[in-house]
């Protein structure tokens, strides 16, 4: 099966700034692929390289096997849901959704029929006559989605589409996007800086850092076995342990990582890790505590709600099952 998108050593430099630097990437057809990273890490530039709004300064990009180096955006059967939605303010919702068909010369009746179908898909069938300014943020987001899907793209690109929504709406949209993607079978490429969003929605994800891919894999792999210190820190804020502490915990002399939720409270005597509690933060679903372990390491742990919470300054012990300690080759 031809992959939906492949990057072969793709770079995009802006003067001396290496926004994307030698990225190799394969996105399987029909998958939900997330590009995760902090702002300025190159993930949005990668998305724009697929849509054609940026041209690579090096390397080649293939979309379903076709080299798109010389293909302008309007000839790529790839559509984008923009971060600011970019709805046309002078058109009503139906004309916005039908726009892609209009510019392709589809007749009025046919394109409005298809547009209404798409609006029904995003549950906005009664909103066709409104102007975008009369809609809420969540509704605009759905219109942008319907507009991007009307052309039946081979790949749908989503640039932080949920960034402007409040938490409750965001969670609902996450479920909806996932369901929609499975129903339509279109390849979704999703850019986000929210690691929770990437982990919960993606089949595969790439973690970007400074223009390069730090790690690529399934959410489980990336979360449980971060390959670099950056990934460990960025995806779920892992405890990153230097080699001497790894060895003291029964591992080899190498960098390792430990997830805060894999640590459990125990008595200080004889515990693998022990030290005074330096900070305590209430999370709603539990408490996050930090202890100062011997050797200067700060270790974070999450205690589920209902368990007794230690006080700041109190010395406690932490334990974990050996499999939770993930040892890496290098830092």
């Amino acid at each position, binding site marked *: 099966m031809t992959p939906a998108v492949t990057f072969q050593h793709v770079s995009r430099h802006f003067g001396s700034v290496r926004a994307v630097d030698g990225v190799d990437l394969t996105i399987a057809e029909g998958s939900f692929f997330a590009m995760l990273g902090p702002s300025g890490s190159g993930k949005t530039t990668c998305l724009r390289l697929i849509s054609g709004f940026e041209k690579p300064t090096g390397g080649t990009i293939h979309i379903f096997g076709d080299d798109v180096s010389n293909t302008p955006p309007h*000839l790529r059967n790839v559509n984008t849901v923009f971060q600011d939605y970019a709805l*046309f303010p002078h058109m009503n919702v139906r004309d916005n959704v039908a726009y892609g068909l209009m510019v392709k010369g589809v007749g009025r009746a046919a394109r409005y029929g298809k547009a209404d179908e798409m609006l029904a898909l995003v549950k906005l069938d009664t909103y066709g006559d409104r102007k975008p300014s009369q809609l809420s943020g969540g509704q605009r987001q759905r219109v942008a989605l319907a507009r*991007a899907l009307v052309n039946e793209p081979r790949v749908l690109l989503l640039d932080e589409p949920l960034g402007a929504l409040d938490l409750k709406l965001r969670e609902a949209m996450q479920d909806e996007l996932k369901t929609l993607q499975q129903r339509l079978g279109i390849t979704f490429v999703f850019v986000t800086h929210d690691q929770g969003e990437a982990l919960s929605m993606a089949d595969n994800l790439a973690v970007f850092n400074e223009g390069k891919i730090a790690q690529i894999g399934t959410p489980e792999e990336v979360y449980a076995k971060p390959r670099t210190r950056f990934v460990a820190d960025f995806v779920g804020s892992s405890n990153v342990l230097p080699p001497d502490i790894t060895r003291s915990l029964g591992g080899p002399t190498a960098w390792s990582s430990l997830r805060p939720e894999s640590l459990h409270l125990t008595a200080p005597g004889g515990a693998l890790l022990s030290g005074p509690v330096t900070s305590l933060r209430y999370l709603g679903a539990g408490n996050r505590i930090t202890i100062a372990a011997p050797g200067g390491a700060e270790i974070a742990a999450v205690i589920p709600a209902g368990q007794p919470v230690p006080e700041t300054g109190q010395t406690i012990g932490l334990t974990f099952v050996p499999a939770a300690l993930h040892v890496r080759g290098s830092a």
Partner: protein
Amino acid sequence: MTAIPAVLPERGLADRLTGLFWRRPNVLLALAIAPPLIWLGVVYVGSLAALLLQSFYSIDEFSGVVVPEFTLKTYAELFRPQNFDIIWRTLLMSALVTLASAIIAFPIAYFAARYAKGRWKAVFYLGVMLPLWSSYLVKVYAWKLILAKEGIVTWVAEKLGAGFVIDAILAIPAIGGNSLSTSYIGTFIVFVYVWLPFMILPMQASLERVPTSMLEASADLGATRSQTFRTVILPLALPGVIAGSIFTFSLTMGDYIIPQIVGTSARFIGLAVYQQQGTAGNLPLAAAFAVVPIVIMLVYLALAKRAGAFDAL
């Protein structure tokens, strides 16, 4: 421990006034807009109403005295051939000047809005505004010299062996003439030159408000550049184009100096108003002439509104 007061004491008039404005926000608003309202309402609209009133009077043809009685006679005079010609000529010239300004201004405004950054933006503003800082009369006379038979345009054309092009242009009936500076073409060129900044600036402001992502969305959905221009850029920039065209259109309609200096010395509305209220002493007819551009602008705005020019506002 000394207690720090939760409420600070008033220190003087400024504190008391600020307090008053906080309790009654409308007081500040009223103080701020009263002077301009008086200016606009009384001085500006008031004199306009007086003008309108004047146009419904007529002049006694023997004594030359204004008869202050309501009549439509003066308006009927506008439709006499020699007067109607003036209106028609002015309208046509204003429309052509506006169209040409819009066509020339668009690329400049688009460049300034989309691509000019930092220093280049300053260069743009300076370039557009600089001509406005020098005297209008100096510029018009300079153009008269530039376009004259012995002027630089004809001279360069002849040196390049392209003198026949100018001759061919001047040979066009109705708009041609003896030289560029004594033809309608000359008047047109100078009008476009003088009013162009008034088209560029509002156009640039409206283009600046079109986000790049909207142009990208259009291309992303399959639109060619010309489709994006027609269906996205132009509708969104239209309020700016209309604003600019109001300037160029009404400024051309009201101007009475340029056609006197450069051109065929055929009369335009501005000159007609000038002569009617001055030499001829026919104030009602001058007023009626002055009402024409107002009516034309109102019709133009109504048409633009109906065409949806302000939907994107």
